């Protein structure tokens, strides 16, 4: 390495060279360093030439062909290691490969902010360089996630900013692409490229057509800009003079004549578009109808010889005079009139000389082209939201952040429904501002969200009472509904509407946060699941209550208290609604976790999505025991039966069904295949949603009487069992009715069954006013299949309601006389029939 004593080195540069020197010494010739000098054109920079042995890297198809030793120049900034060095080559052999900018600059870091470790300095840098060479040789330089960018110093911010939104055209192998870019003028300095028109295509004839072609709103200001895409890679480094650029383009047969002609044709077309009917004021002949941005594309991306290359774009802002010269050229040299040809040549000659003297003003370019950019959220669950139609109910502490997350994720359409107004109290934790006070939350939020990505996401407000406004929406057009209302009424309405809808609903996610915003719940009802939000939350409550380890006790208190909380926070004295406390940090964090969880679940394959609830808790201080981490509960679908009497859904949990089947199988084995059996059902009837929840089933009590044609449900132990279950479930699950089987025959009530429905609901003591009678049955093959494989039997369900007057006597619990002499079995776990024992006479509770 050259003695660098004569160089002015900063402390950082000295460190860099020392580290480099150590690497060279330790690498036995595999890394060599030679020349160290001040960098021309980069004040303060020091360059060091190093060469790296690459002899071990096999040559691959599609990989870069490396020399056995590769030399590069490191440019070490004065503020090393707080700025990463950069690296360039003298040759242009790597031009066109991914992560090579401008033919010579190797791009080692996508983001130095996260990838460059100042502490690791040159060690990390050289490793990164080795990574680059290895990937290059293997042809594994992936496509850059970030757009290529020119050295910032060389772009001229006063020249304006272009955001490229549409995939760019590519040249044919033997012919450059000529045409125009459709520009949407967003503000004074910024234009978005929203479309491309090839010269041979028909061009829009009116501003309306132009906007329509680019899907722009009616008030958008749009115009055309000349654009060329070359067939060959240009290795110039952002030429500072137009002459260099023009020379480089001429090698691709893009002569000044063509450039001027194209500029003129586009300028003419802009005039036609923007001043229809030739109403351009005569004195504005010198003023262009639109700024002249010349877009220049080169086939710079992709690996040489490997598949199609993508277009790298730069834009050159030309003075207004270009508009005039261009139009002159177009009107003479390209007029097709021979008498103007000579004048045309003069104009071209004049224009070329003018171009030659022009400095280049490179515009800043921000890439938003799908073909060259990768969304930052592409590998996250939020990617599911892209292009989706989303309904968000509620625009409060949960709804507002949830809606924003959907908008940022690129949902195509978002509807936000809320009827509330912004008032001062909510600003502490909801994303509204002082100026919004008194306005509808939904409207204010939608205005803001519409500004996030107007080219992708359209957001609509639905102001009004959600429960009534919902009927005006076709919910089936949505992909996902977020219920962020934390409102039982909304939940019940949704459950009922979902249940009674003939077509399946979209996914429904019901979000809740606890009273102090320390816990959150998200209940997911995927499309086609048997239960909606109210159902899944009820399951959650049941699971929380019945969990023997008590890990959910905090949830019970927060979300499913058996006693209503007594200390309710009243933020605004006199206000009748109790509400919640918690900070913006709390609610936003909970919303984020819940949304991420739900999206994870939705990203699963359709056949693996189940009803599920995510439980999250906020962290506490470092000296306090931390709450448990996120936890999912999941449930398979219920078996659905429609109640004959009410039309309600009877939702039989897999657990209840399994219990019934176990008892039926045991009966078939012990008592014979045709002996009926049955037992008690636990659950609840929800008249608001029209759902009868069958949570559990039990077998026949020991004093039951089981025969082939008759099943009498006993009472021994039933009362105690019900009490125990009520206690265990926080009274969520209680006596619901009785089930029995009709082995090998239809699941239809007999006359005896009908009579039993009346008896069951007789107004005696604590007897229920309503009870579900559930009959499982079915023809022989079906029945045997259920016992063997679990494939459901036929069910008959009837919610019997009390009809008998108050004074009705209970029926005699006799075995119906018409049955004649039968073999009967007791319930419980008896394994022998009772032939000679009289039928028990216990008819009422003992």
């Amino acid at each position: 390495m050259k003695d660098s004593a004569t160089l002015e080195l900063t402390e950082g540069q000295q460190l860099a060279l020392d580290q480099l020197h150590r690497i060279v010494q330790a690498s036995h010739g595999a890394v060599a360093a030679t020349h160290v000098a001040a960098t021309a054109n980069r004040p303060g920079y020091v360059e060091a030439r190093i060469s790296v042995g690459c002899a071990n890297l096999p040559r691959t198809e599609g990989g870069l062909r490396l020399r056995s030793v590769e030399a590069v120049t490191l440019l070490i900034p004065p503020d090393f290691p707080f700025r990463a060095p950069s690296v360039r080559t003298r040759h242009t052999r790597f031009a066109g490969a991914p992560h090579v900018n401008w033919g010579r600059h190797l791009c080692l870091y996508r983001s130095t902010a996260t990838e460059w470790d100042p502490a690791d300095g040159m060690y990390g840098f050289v490793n990164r360089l080795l990574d680059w060479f290895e990937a290059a040789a293997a042809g594994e330089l992936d496509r850059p996630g970030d757009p290529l960018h020119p050295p910032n110093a060389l772009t001229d911010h006063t020249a304006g900013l272009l955001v490229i939104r549409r995939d760019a055209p590519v040249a044919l192998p033997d012919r450059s692409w000529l045409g125009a870019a459709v520009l949407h003028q967003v503000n004074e300095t910024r234009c978005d490229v929203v479309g491309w028109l090839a010269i041979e295509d028909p061009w829009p004839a009116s501003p309306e057509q132009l906007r329509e072609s680019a899907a722009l709103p009616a008030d958008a200001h749009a115009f055309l800009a000349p654009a060329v895409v070359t067939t060959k890679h240009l290795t110039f480094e952002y030429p500072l003079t137009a002459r260099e650029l023009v020379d480089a383009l001429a090698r691709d047969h893009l002569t000044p004549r063509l450039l001027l002609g194209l500029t003129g044709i586009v300028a003419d077309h802009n005039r036609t578009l923007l001043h229809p009917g030739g109403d351009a004021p005569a004195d504005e002949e010198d003023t262009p109808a639109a700024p002249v941005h010349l877009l220049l594309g080169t086939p710079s991306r992709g690996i040489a010889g490997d598949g199609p290359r993508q277009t790298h774009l730069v834009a050159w802002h030309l003075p207004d005079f270009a508009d005039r010269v261009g139009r002159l050229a177009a009107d003479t040299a390209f007029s097709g009139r021979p008498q103007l040809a000579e004048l045309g040549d003069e104009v071209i000659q004049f224009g070329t000389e003018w171009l030659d003297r022009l400095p280049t003003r490179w515009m800043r370019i921000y890439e938003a082209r799908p073909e060259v950019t990768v969304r930052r959220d592409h590998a996250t669950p939020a990617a599911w939201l892209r292009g989706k139609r989303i309904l968000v109910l509620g625009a409060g502490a949960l709804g507002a952040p949830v809606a924003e997350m959907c908008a940022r994720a690129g949902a195509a359409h978002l509807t936000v429904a809320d009827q509330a107004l912004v008032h001062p109290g909510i600003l502490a934790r909801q994303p509204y501002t002082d100026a919004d006070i008194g306005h509808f939350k939904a409207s204010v939020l939608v205005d803001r969200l519409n500004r996030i990505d107007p080219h992708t996401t359209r957001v609509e407000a639905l102001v009004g009472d959600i429960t009534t406004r919902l009927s005006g929406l076709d919910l089936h057009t949505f992909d996902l509904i977020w219920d962020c209302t934390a409102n039982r009424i909304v939940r019940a309405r949704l459950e009922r509407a979902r249940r009674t809808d003939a077509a399946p609903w979209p996914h429904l996610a019901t979000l809740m946060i606890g009273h102090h915003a320390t816990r959150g719940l998200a209940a997911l009802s995927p499309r086609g699941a048997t239960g909606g939000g109210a159902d899944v939350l009820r399951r959650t409550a049941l699971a929380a209550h019945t969990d023997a380890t008590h890990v959910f006790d905090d949830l019970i208190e927060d979300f499913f208290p058996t006693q209503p909380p007594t200390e309710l926070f009243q933020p605004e004295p006199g206000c009748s609604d109790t509400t919640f406390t918690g900070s913006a940090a709390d609610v936003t964090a909970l919303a984020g976790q819940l949304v991420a969880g739900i999206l994870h679940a939705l990203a699963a394959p359709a056949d693996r999505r189940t009803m599920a609830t995510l439980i999250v808790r906020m962290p506490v201080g470092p000296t306090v025991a931390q709450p448990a981490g996120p936890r999912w509960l999941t449930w398979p679908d219920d078996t659905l039966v429609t109640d004959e009497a009410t039309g309600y859904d009877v939702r039989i949990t897999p657990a209840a069904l399994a219990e019934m089947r176990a008892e039926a199988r045991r009966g078939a084995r012990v008592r014979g295949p045709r002996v009926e059996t049955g037992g008690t059902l636990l659950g609840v009837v929800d008249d608001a949603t029209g759902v009868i929840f069958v949570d559990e089933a039990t077998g026949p009590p020991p004093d039951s009487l089981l025969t082939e044609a008759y099943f009498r449900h006993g009472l021994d132990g039933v009362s105690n069992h019900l009490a125990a279950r009520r206690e265990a479930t926080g009274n969520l699950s209680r006596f619901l009715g009785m089930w029995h089987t009709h082995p090998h025959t239809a699941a239809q009530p007999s006359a005896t069954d009908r009579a039993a429905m009346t008896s069951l609901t007789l107004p005696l003591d604590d007897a229920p006013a309503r009870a579900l009678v559930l009959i499982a049955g079915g023809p022989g093959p079906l029945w045997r299949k259920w016992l063997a494989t679990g494939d459901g039997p036929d069910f008959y369900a009837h919610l019997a309601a009390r009809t008998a007057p108050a004074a009705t006597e209970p029926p005699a619990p006799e075995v119906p006389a018409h049955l004649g002499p039968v073999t009967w079995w007791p319930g419980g776990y008896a394994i022998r029939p009772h032939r000679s024992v009289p039928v028990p006479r216990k008819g009422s509770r003992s």
Partner: protein
Amino acid sequence: MVETELPEQGVVFWPVGTGDSTTIVLGGDLVVQVDLRDMKAADEDDAVVAAVIDRLEETLPQPDGKTPYLAVFALTHADKDHCCGFGDLLESSILIGEIWATPRLWRELSEDKPMCEDARRFQEEVERRVDATLQAIKDGKEPASGDRVRIIGYDEDREGHSYAQLPDEYFTFPGKPITTVDGVEVSDKFEAFVHAPFKDDCAGDRNDTSLALQVQLHTDDGTTGRLLFLGDLAYPTIKKIFGYSESHDRTDRIEWDVLLSPHHCSKKAMYAKGEDGEEELKQDILDQLEAHANADARVISSSRPFRDKDDKGNDPPHLLARTAYESITDYPVLCTGEYPSKEEPRPVVFALEPGLGLELVDVTDLENKGQVLKAAGGGRRLLATLGTTRFPAAAFTAAAGLPHQRGTDAARAGVQQARGDKAEPAVQIGFGAA
């Protein structure tokens, strides 16, 4: 990596201490040797140098099935470090088809300048060939391979010597290319453009009358490799060469991919006395060299390893020169005495890769290829075999074997070691107040 592909054309720079010995493989049976320094004769203390003749004798093609054939031997000038061992070469079984010589030796003989034994043998051989050629011409025949000679350059005293009677076709003057070797027209794969000796320098120091050549090797696909041989020329003559070619619009003749640094990496190539009589760096020649260098150009120092610092009066190689060359190329100067290591040098082999140009072939790569290519014919075998020559030093190196491969894995290991990832104390260390 074992690839059996090795190009047919290339060049081998032998580790012969501070001296030149270069073998250019043209493909087919054609091999050109520029200068010679054979280890057996070199007798340089503790220098690890190659027994070039023995190796050539073993490996040169044998078109007739028994005689090793060297198409051309070119001598840049008659210094010992460029022709040492020529006598042995003559006595070996090798047939030298044609000899390229400058008129300088005749002048030196007539001026009775001191000349080494090998230079004398060379001069005698050239004179024999001049006579044989004249005889053949008299007989109306082409001179036979083995009798051919080409005189390169002009000397004012030529009329006093027999070679002056040779017809023009046996002469080449500066500014002209040579495209035949030993009577075979090879312009599709080889051209040697003569830059020097200049007529005006014919009476100067011997070094200043060195033959200077730009050799171009061409592949079938149009890839060209450019080698620049500047003998032992110093700044003024080199400057003249570049100036001429620039002003005569033939800059393609001074372009270079590989430069054999003049005079074994002597600082005289770019340092010369300024107006004040002090030696100064001549940036102009460096700028010219850089302007005509390929982006991947490399400089060879055919010399013993570099010393740690230059002392006044040191012979080449000079660190000053190395630093100067490294300021104009991206790659380190490649010293034949240090490649791949001082302890165990190997010939430096550049192969002409289609589509890429002259490419340094890694030693381990050559070793692998050498095995595979033993059976192959032509230039491939030659490059591989010559490149894997081991020298006596290797025999007494305890851990003789494959040199380290210079790959990214070795570089990575270097980074790791430099960073101290796996550092641990190597010896027991005592502490205490005592």
